[in-house]
Each structure stands twice: as structure tokens, then as C-alpha cells.
């Protein structure tokens, strides 16, 4: 109750905070809002005023396919990232802090290494003549090299690896805030570990999953390097397509239109998620 009355604070409360937020707002306004508006304008004025860029975009099977691909890849990456990150985050949440900080350090450390380097490292591991395939073939487990690169599998492996910290960090925060006694109470009431997970832990960690999941999904939508190097052309993602359209074909109008549509869809998803999580929270909290 106290929380909600704070959130609905007086006008005075709102404006008191806005003074210190002003530099940040200016920064966002200048370096985000202005370019986005310029992008939108470009998409309806280049080469001539009108909606022809959008017509070309939706009329082109190529772009529609690349859009669908982009969302498919982002969805797969997000789902796999959640599955991998959850156990790690849970372990971090219940570990003694001394060990926890070591594991945390390892996770953060991977983020300090250059993205391109990490992606090339995956190429060396995943290719037909790479470490993984050679080892498996040497052990006689497989006869033919597994297709791990230049396809959806390659993109997913490479991107999940990069996205993991962005999922683990918010999730650990949420999981740490859960009172372990609730799980013990569930066990005492006769819940199996799976029931305790499904009915207690999962619902309570949902805000963390949603926050991390959205971040991973949105970041994945705009990813460039990793899909370009680990994916095949049939999984081409939008960022690469836009880069080609602008850099090589010099079609700024079409490129802007594609970027703008992606932005609108992303914002719509964000709004949807806010509604869903918001509803869930009030429903579940009581």
C-alpha cells in the first residue's frame, strides 16, 4: 500500500525528481528522439515524398522473410537464454556470497572480451573442421560433421552465449528477493520440488524473467555481427539487410523504413509486455 501511494505521489513529488533527470532527458532527446524523427522523415521523403518505401518494404518477399527470420531468431535465442540462465541465476542466488562473487566475476568477465573475438572463437569451435566436430568424429560418436554453423543452430549458440549475462543479472536480483521460507513452507505443505518450482518460484521470478527476456529479445532483434558470421544467408537478420540496403545500394529511404518498422514493432512488444507483467503482478500479489 505504501509503495503504491508513493508511486502515485503528488505533482510536487514528480517535478522534484525531474530536475536531476533533465540532463539524461536532454541526452536521450538529442541523441535518440531527434535521430528517430529524422529516420522517420527520411523513410517518407527519400527519394520523393510518399509511402512508396513502405509499399516496397511490405511488397517485397525478401524483406518480409527477413523480418520473420529476425523475430524467429530473437524468439529462439530468448527462450534458450531463459532456460540456460535460470539455473545459473538460482545457483547464484542461493550460493554463499564468497563463491557467488567468483561465479559472478566469471560471467561479467566474458562481457569484457571483444564481441568480434568471441564470435570468431565460436566459428573456430563450431565449423565442420572445428574443435567440436573433430573431437566427436575422433571419438567415433559421429561419422559426418554436424552442421553447427551457417545456420540457425550457429546463430542461436553464439547469441545465447553473448546474451546470458543480460538475462542472469536481472534474474539474480529477482530470485534473491524471494524469501526462501516460501519454498520451505511449500515443502512443508506437501508440495513436490516441481510443484514448488512451478507454483512458487516461477511465478515469483516472473518479473525478472520478463525484464531479462525483453532485454535479450530486443537486443537480439538488432544484432549484426554474430548472425552475419555464424548464420547462413537463409537466416539473414534485419540489421544485416538494412546495412546492405544503405551501404551498398544507397537506398536510405528503404533502409530507414525497415529500421522504423522494426522500432515500432519493438515498442509495441514492450508495451504489451508492460501490460501483461503489470496485470500479472497485481493479480498474483494478492
Amino acid at each position: 500500500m505504501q509503495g503504491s501511494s508513493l508511486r502515485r505521489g503528488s505533482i510536487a513529488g514528480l517535478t522534484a525528481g525531474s530536475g536531476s533527470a533533465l540532463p539524461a532527458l536532454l541526452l536521450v532527446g538529442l541523441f535518440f528522439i531527434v535521430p528517430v524523427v529524422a529516420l522517420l522523415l527520411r523513410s517518407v521523403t527519400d527519394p520523393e515524398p510518399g509511402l512508396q518505401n513502405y509499399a516496397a518494404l511490405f511488397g517485397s518477399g525478401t524483406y518480409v522473410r527477413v523480418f520473420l527470420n529476425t523475430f524467429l531468431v530473437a524468439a529462439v535465442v530468448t527462450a534458450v537464454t531463459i532456460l540456460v540462465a535460470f539455473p545459473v541465476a538460482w545457483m547464484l542466488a542461493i550460493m554463499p556470497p564468497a563463491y557467488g562473487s567468483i561465479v559472478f566475476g566469471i560471467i561479467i568477465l566474458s562481457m569484457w572480451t571483444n564481441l568480434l573475438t568471441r564470435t570468431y572463437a565460436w566459428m573456430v569451435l563450431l565449423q565442420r573442421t572445428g574443435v567440436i566436430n573433430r573431437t566427436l568424429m575422433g571419438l567415433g560418436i559421429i561419422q559426418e560433421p554436424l552442421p553447427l554453423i551457417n545456420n540457425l543452430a550457429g546463430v542461436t549458440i553464439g547469441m545465447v552465449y553473448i546474451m546470458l549475462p543480460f538475462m542472469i543479472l536481472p534474474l539474480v536480483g529477482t530470485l534473491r528477493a524471494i524469501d526462501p521460507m516460501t519454498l520451505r513452507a511449500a515443502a512443508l505443505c506437501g508440495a513436490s520440488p516441481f510443484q514448488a518450482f512451478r507454483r512458487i518460484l516461477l511465478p515469483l521470478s516472473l518479473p525478472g524473467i520478463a525484464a531479462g527476456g525483453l532485454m535479450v529479445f530486443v537486443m537480439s532483434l538488432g544484432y549484426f555481427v554474430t548472425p552475419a558470421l555464424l548464420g547462413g544467408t537463409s537466416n539473414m537478420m534485419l540489421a544485416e539487410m538494412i546495412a546492405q540496403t544503405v551501404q551498398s545500394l544507397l537506398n536510405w529511404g528503404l533502409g530507414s523504413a525497415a529500421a522504423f518498422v522494426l522500432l515500432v514493432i519493438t515498442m509495441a512488444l514492450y508495451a504489451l509486455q508492460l501490460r501483461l507483467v503489470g496485470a500479472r503482478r497485481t493479480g498474483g500479489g494478492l
Partner: protein
Amino acid sequence: MKLILTGLLAGLLAATAARADEMVFTSWGGTTQEAQTKSWAAPFEASSGIKVLQDGPTDYGKLKAMVDAKNVTWDVVDVEMDFAIKAAKDGLLEPIDFAVVPKADLDPRFSNDHAVGSFYYSFVLAWNKGSVSGEPASWADMFDTKKFPGKRTFYKWSAPGVIEIALLADGVPADKLYPLDLDRAFKKLDTIKSDIVWWGGGAESQQLIASGEATFGQLWNGRVFALQQDGTDVGVSWNQNLTAADVLVVPKGAKNKDSAMKFLAAATSPTGQAKFAEASGYAPINTKAKGEMPAEVVKGLPDAHVDGQINLDMNYWAEHRDEIATRWYAWQTK
């Protein structure tokens, strides 16, 4: 306060003064730009006193944005020739001042009113000797998955080369390539689509072949040359080698146009071209350059393989660039 202002003013003046004998050269980075810096920029700086700043990589979108915004920070740019022809038509380039740049000895295939050759190269068929049994002899062999199983690697982007290779492999005679029959080319490419690994840049093409990840592929001859220099066991077929060129252009409104023209004169001189060719394995566009090169190096140039050599039609590509690209990406992403 006054002191600071005076200091600022002096600094500004110094900066503008420095600008007068500075210029910016932009190319693709990597071993190619290193060779250009060593063979062209360094001697040019010594003889002219004009400092050459390096930038890169070349980005056509950025070039257009600079010209559109009338804030051009590049003075000489290394671009692909089909782009240069289209860019000149779109008004993005300064005409070359042939009063400064001697034209007589330039290979007419690779120079025009708005561009002078940078170097020229051939697409050749290269293979990893360790993973191919037998020797592929022609582009047609790249489409024969029974005789030559394994992955083959081609240039990823819509550019002169792959379409022509598919048509040649399908039996189109070299002198009947243009206008390109895109339907026929894509149909031919369909037959090996799942066996293709694409390379997006020169280093990637070398890595694919050297590691045996792709057994053979369509490579730039300079990249094969570098692999062989490194002792990699790579085979190469010059049969039906396809020539294309990089050219040097001056973006419209370049701030140091006069210096840029002088730089072009030095870069396209017999000596500049000979030195660059020696360092890179790419071919000189100055017909006098070979006289200044060791016979050993001349043997490895595309010039030594004119028999069966095919010149990719840059004018055709400049004309149909967008149309082909649309088809290309539609096919590739399918």
C-alpha cells in the same frame, strides 16, 4: 580570458594551416590498405610534403551521406568500379583532373572521367589441396557435387562475379554473358545452394579455404597469392579468370581536392603501381608498371593469364546494380 581566446585563435589558425597540406585516404583496411600506405602514401608524403591520413573501411553509405550533407572528410576513396560508375552518374564524384593525373599509360579498361584504377584483380578458382582429390579445372566443376563433393565458397554480396560464374558453368559462351540471364543463373545456383558457404570479406575467404572448411571457392587472386606466400597448400586455376577492378575516386566537395589529384597521380604512376602490385599480388593498372617489377612477381599477375580471361562488364553492372541486387537477396534469403 583574453589569453585563452588568443590561444584558441592561434590553435584554430594552426589547425587550418595544417589542413592545407593534409588529406585523407580511405580504403578497405587489412593487407590491401597497408600495401597502399607503404607503396603510395609514404613516398607521396616524402616528395610532396602533404600528410596523408588513413581512414576506413570504405563505406558507400557514408560516402553518400558526406556528399549529401556537404561535409566531406574523405579526399581519395578506394571503391569497386561498378559503384564508381553509378556514383558518378548520381553526381557523387569529382571529375578527375587529367592535367594533373597523366592518363596516357593507364589501362583504359579501368579508368574513366570520374575514376582512375587503383588495382585490378581476378576471381580465380582456388582449392585446398589437402581436401580435394583431383584438380578442379573450370567453374563447371564447382557445380559438380558428384565429382567434387564438399562445401564451396562464393562471394556473399550482390556484385559482379557469381552470376557470371553460374552462367559460364551452365555453358554460356564468354562473349554471350551480357545481358545476364538472371533466371538461368539462379536456376544453376539452386543446384548447389545447400553446398555453398558464403564469404563476406577477403580474410574470411582465406580462412575457409586454409582450414578446409570449404574445399574450394571463388577467391580474389591477391588473397590466394597471400595464402601461398604463407605456405598454405592451395591450388589455383586461372581458367576463365574474371577481372574486376578497384578504382580511386574523389568525392564531390572533397576539402583537399588539389592534394587528392596529386595523390592520384602518384598512386597511378608506374612506380606506385609496381610497388603496390609487388606487395599485394594484385595487378597494376598502369601499363608501364611491369617494367619496374621483378619477373617472378609478374608471372603471378592476372596479366600472365589473359588466355581465357573474361572482363566482367562494369558498365552493365553499374546500370543494373539495384535490379540484380533485389533478385540476389530474394534468392539468397529464400
